[in-house]
C-alpha cells in the first residue's frame, strides 16, 4: 500500500524584546543563572503581570507577514501544569481566543510553489531552563535557572498541510527568514530562540481521515528535523504494515542514533485546565495601532526576491541566494548603487565574496568583521571594465581587500598588479616566449592549435598574470601567423 505523510508544525519563536513579557527583567542570553528574575517572573504571591507592548507589536508584525487575521480582542489564559521550570505552576498563554488566526505562507519546494496554512499565532511566555547534574554528587538532582522564565514567545501553529520532510524544512526556513527579516526573533535554533515541534502521521493515499499523530519534540536544527520526520514516517508505516496501531504520544528525537523515542510519562495525560487569566484583561488592539504597525512593516523575503528579479533582471536563483539574509541583500543593493551591472555584481557576490565569507567565517552584517564596502567592490569591478586589471587579478585583490579592508587602488598599487595593456611590452614578452619554445611554435604552425593556450599561459607566467588577456590574444595571434 502507498502511504502519505501528514505533517503540521508548532513553532516557538522567542521575541527580541529587551525586557520580559510581564515584568522588566532583561531577556539577555547568557547571564549567570537567576540574575534576571524578579518577584513577578519567580511567581511570588501577590504579584501582577503587566504585558510588554513591544511583544504585542512583534506578534502583530508576524501576523501581517503571514497573512493572518488579527483579533481586535484576544484573551490570555492559564495553562496549568507542574514542572520545576515553571515557577507559577501555570504558563500564561492564549487558548480559545488567540491574537491572530487563519493565515498562510507560500513556500517553494524544488521549484514548485505550495501554500501552507497557518492555524493561529498566539502569545505566551517561555519557561525556565533545567540543567541536569553531570557530576556524581549532582547526579540525583536537576538545577533550575529562571532567567528565561517569562521571556515572550509567539507560537505559530500550522495546518497539517505538509506532505514530506522537504516541505516541512522549507516551511520552517521560510518562517525563520520572515522572523529574522522582521527583526522580531534572532532565529537561533542552537540557543533555543527558534524551536520546532512536529506533528507527524501517515495515512493510505486517497484516505481523507487523518491518521493518529505522534508529536516530535526536542529537535534543534534543520537537518535534525528532516531526519526526525523521515524516521518517524518510516516507523509509522512499518508499524501499520505489521498490523500495529499508532499511539498518540510525544516522542523525542535522539540525534546520535537518528531515531525517535517514546517519552512515556505519567504527565502524558494532558489536562491543562485552561481558564482565562484573571490578572490580565483581554488584549484589545485599536485599529490605529494596527495601521501604524502595518505601515512600518519592512520588505519581506518573498517580496524582496520578486523585486530583485524584476528590478535587477537577475535570475531567480541569484535572487534566492542574495536574499537569503537581509544583510546580504542590503549589501548587494548597496553595490548596485555604485556599479550598474546587477548580474556582474551578483556573480561576484555569490561566487568570490560568499566563498571568502564561508572560508573566513566572517559575518557580512558585522562591519567590524567584514570590511569590503559596497563602494570598494564597485571600484574593483570598474577596474576590470577599464582593463586596469584582469578578472583573475581582481580575485586576488578582492581577497586582500577581504583580509585587510584596504581600498582596491591601494592593493593594486602595493602588489604592483596593474594590468599590462601596452602592446610593445606585451610583444616583447610574447617574442621572448616564442623564441624559447621553437618546437611548440612549429607544432602550432603545423596545426596543433591547442598549443595557443600554452603560449598564453607562458606569457601570463612571465608577466605575473598581469597581461591584458584580450590584448594578449590579439597580439599572440598576430605574432604566430607571421
Amino acid at each position: 500500500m502507498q502511504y502519505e505523510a501528514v505533517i503540521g508544525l508548532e513553532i516557538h519563536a522567542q521575541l527580541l524584546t529587551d525586557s520580559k513579557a510581564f515584568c522588566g527583567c532583561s531577556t539577555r542570553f547568557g547571564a549567570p543563572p537567576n540574575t534576571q528574575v524578579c518577584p513577578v517572573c519567580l511567581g511570588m504571591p501577590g504579584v501582577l503581570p503587566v504585558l510588554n507592548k513591544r511583544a504585542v507589536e512583534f506578534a502583530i508584525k508576524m501576523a501581517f507577514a503571514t497573512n493572518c487575521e488579527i483579533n481586535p480582542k484576544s484573551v490570555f489564559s492559564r495553562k496549568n501544569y507542574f514542572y520545576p521550570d515553571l515557577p507559577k505552576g501555570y504558563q500564561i498563554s492564549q487558548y480559545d481566543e488567540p491574537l491572530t488566526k487563519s493565515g498562510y505562507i507560500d513556500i517553494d519546494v524544488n521549484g514548485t510553489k505550495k501554500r501552507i496554512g497557518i492555524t493561529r499565532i498566539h502569545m505566551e511566555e517561555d519557561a525556565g531552563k533545567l540543567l541536569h547534574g553531570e557530576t556524581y554528587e549532582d547526579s540525583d538532582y536537576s538545577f533550575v535557572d529562571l532567567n528565561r522564565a517569562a521571556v515572550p514567545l509567539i507560537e505559530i501553529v500550522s495546518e497539517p498541510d505538509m506532505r514530506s520532510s522537504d516541505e516541512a524544512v522549507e516551511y520552517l526556513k521560510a518562517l525563520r527568514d520572515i522572523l529574522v527579516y522582521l527583526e522580531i526573533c534572532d532565529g537561533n535554533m542552537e540557543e533555543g530562540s527558534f524551536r520546532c515541534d512536529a506533528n507527524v502521521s501517515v495515512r493510505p493515499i486517497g484516505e481523507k481521515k487523518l491518521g493518529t499523530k505522534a508529536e516530535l519534540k526536542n529537535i534543534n536544527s534543520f537537518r535534525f528535523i528532516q531526519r526526525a520526520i523521515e524516521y518517524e514516517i518510516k516507523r509509522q508505516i512499518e508499524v501499520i504494515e505489521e498490523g500495529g496501531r499508532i499511539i498518540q504520544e510525544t516522542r523525542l528525537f535522539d540525534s546520535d542514533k537518528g531515531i525517535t523515542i517514546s517519552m512515556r510519562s505519567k504527565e502524558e495525560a494532558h489536562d491543562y485546565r485552561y481558564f482565562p487569566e484573571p490578572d490580565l484583561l483581554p488584549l484589545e488592539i485599536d485599529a490605529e495601532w494596527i495601521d501604524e504597525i502595518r505601515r512600518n512593516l519592512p520588505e519581506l523575503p518573498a517580496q524582496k526576491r520578486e523585486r530583485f528579479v524584476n528590478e535587477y533582471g537577475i535570475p531567480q536563483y541569484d535572487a534566492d541566494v542574495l536574499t537569503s539574509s537581509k544583510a546580504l541583500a542590503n549589501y548587494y543593493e548597496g553595490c548596485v548603487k555604485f556599479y550598474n551591472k546587477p548580474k556582474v555584481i551578483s556573480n561576484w557576490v555569490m561566487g568570490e565574496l560568499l566563498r571568502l565569507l564561508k572560508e573566513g567565517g566572517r559575518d557580512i552584517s558585522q562591519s567590524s568583521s567584514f570590511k569590503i564596502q559596497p563602494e570598494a567592490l564597485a571600484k574593483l569591478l570598474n577596474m576590470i571594465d577599464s582593463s586596469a586589471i584582469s578578472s583573475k587579478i581582481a580575485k586576488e585583490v578582492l581577497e586582500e581587500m577581504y583580509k585587510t579592508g584596504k581600498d582596491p587602488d591601494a592593493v593594486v598599487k602595493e602588489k604592483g598588479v596593474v594590468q599590462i595593456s601596452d602592446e610593445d611590452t606585451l610583444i616583447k614578452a610574447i617574442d621572448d616566449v616564442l623564441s624559447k619554445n621553437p618546437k611548440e611554435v612549429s607544432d602550432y604552425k603545423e596545426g596543433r592549435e591547442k598549443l595557443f593556450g600554452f603560449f598564453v599561459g607562458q606569457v601570463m607566467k612571465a608577466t605575473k598574470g598581469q597581461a591584458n588577456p584580450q590584448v594578449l590574444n590579439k597580439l599572440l595571434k598576430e605574432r604566430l601567423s607571421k
Partner: protein
Amino acid sequence: MAITKKDVEHAAMLARLELSEDEKVTYTSQLDSILKYVENLRSVSTDGIEPTAHVVPVKISLREDNVKESLVQDEALANAPEKANGCFKVSRIIE
C-alpha cells in the same frame, strides 16, 4: 452534572493533593453541591449580553519595553529549600 469520586481523584492528582478515602467522599459531595449551586446561573438568559472579563469596564494597560533592575541571585534564591550553582536544586526530573 454529577461529580463522581473519580473526578475528585483526577483533580487531586493534577493538583498533587493526597486525599484520604474519607476526604474523597466529603469532597465529592461538597463539590457536587457547589457545582449544582453555580448551575443556577444557567437559568438566567444572557442573550445579547457581551461576555464580561472584568466587573468594571477597564482596559488592559501595556508597559513599554524597558529593562528594570532584577533581584540579585542571593535574593532570588533566598526562599529556595535547596540551592546550588546559583540555581534552585530539585530532584532529578529526567532519567
